[in-house]
């Protein structure tokens, strides 16, 4: 059954792609800034999955050295993603502080209301989208 093999071999990657695209869509299309940040979080989490998935070995165990085990999953992606998580929460805290300040200054956290008339032609949706997504 080759089709099933392909699905098992790539299911994690496909979920990663779905989460990434959903996060991207929320960040770009939604005007509410808190929702944008939640979308950014989903996007980041998909990157964690992208990194951790290839490190897994079937039959392996967590990379803590013990004489009873011989096969360990790859520890390097874990280290990288630990850093990424912590930097991610720093980004989130800064973004939320900005949202609070924007709300104080403009009385709104909706992009459409802040940018003026909602029926303007210019599409401001992607304005703040690329800031923290990497």
């Amino acid at each position, binding site marked *: 059954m080759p089709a099933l093999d392909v699905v098992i071999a790539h299911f994690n990657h496909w979920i990663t792609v779905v989460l990434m695209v959903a996060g991207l869509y929320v960040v770009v299309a939604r005007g509410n800034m808190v929702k944008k940040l939640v979308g950014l979080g989903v996007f980041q989490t998909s990157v964690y999955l992208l990194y*951790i998935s290839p490190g*897994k070995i079937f039959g392996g165990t967590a990379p803590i050295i013990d004489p009873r085990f011989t096969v360990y999953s790859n520890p390097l992606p874990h280290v990288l993603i630990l850093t990424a998580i*912590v930097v991610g929460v720093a980004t989130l805290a800064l973004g939320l502080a900005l949202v609070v300040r924007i709300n104080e200054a403009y009385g709104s956290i909706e992009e459409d209301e802040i940018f003026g008339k909602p029926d303007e032609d210019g599409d401001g949706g992607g304005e703040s989208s690329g800031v923290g997504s990497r």
Partner: protein
Amino acid sequence: MALLTMMVVATFGILRLGNLFAVVILGGIYSFLMATVLVVLDAVDVAMTEASVGAGISTVLMLGTLYLTKVEEAAPVRRSILPLLIALGVGAVLAYGTFDFPPFGVAEAPIHQHVVPRYLAKSVEETMVPNVVTAVLASYRGYDTLGETTVIFTAGIGVLLLLRGGRKGAGARGSKEGGA
């Protein structure tokens, strides 16, 4: 697989719901599911961090922000098809790219061939730490972690400056969100 599918369901809930409180709580559920997936993928350290930071601190920060702002999302004024098209296009390209990935869980994948065998073989001898993730994070790549701490420090300063400083005519509203 079931866990991953549940994560996708939570994501679409985040996408559809208009109540930001529900969105934030769903985000916390999503983070816990992610942590469980990470345990299954043998990344126990990352799972602990994700559960405490992603589901804990992030949710608290989000709820604090909601307390200071608004809970309801405004109805979208204009529905543009462009972001959807962009997202679907990016998704199609990425999904096409996944077919060049090595299959999941195979020990012969290139990622397991290069630096890692040396870490696994020598880290106990060189650092006396049985957990290889800790050994690499704190010993081999200690400067990296120092830089990470600097990033958090900078972010903390930024949050404090944003919430406390630069407030000329705002009256006596103290900053309520200081724990970054």
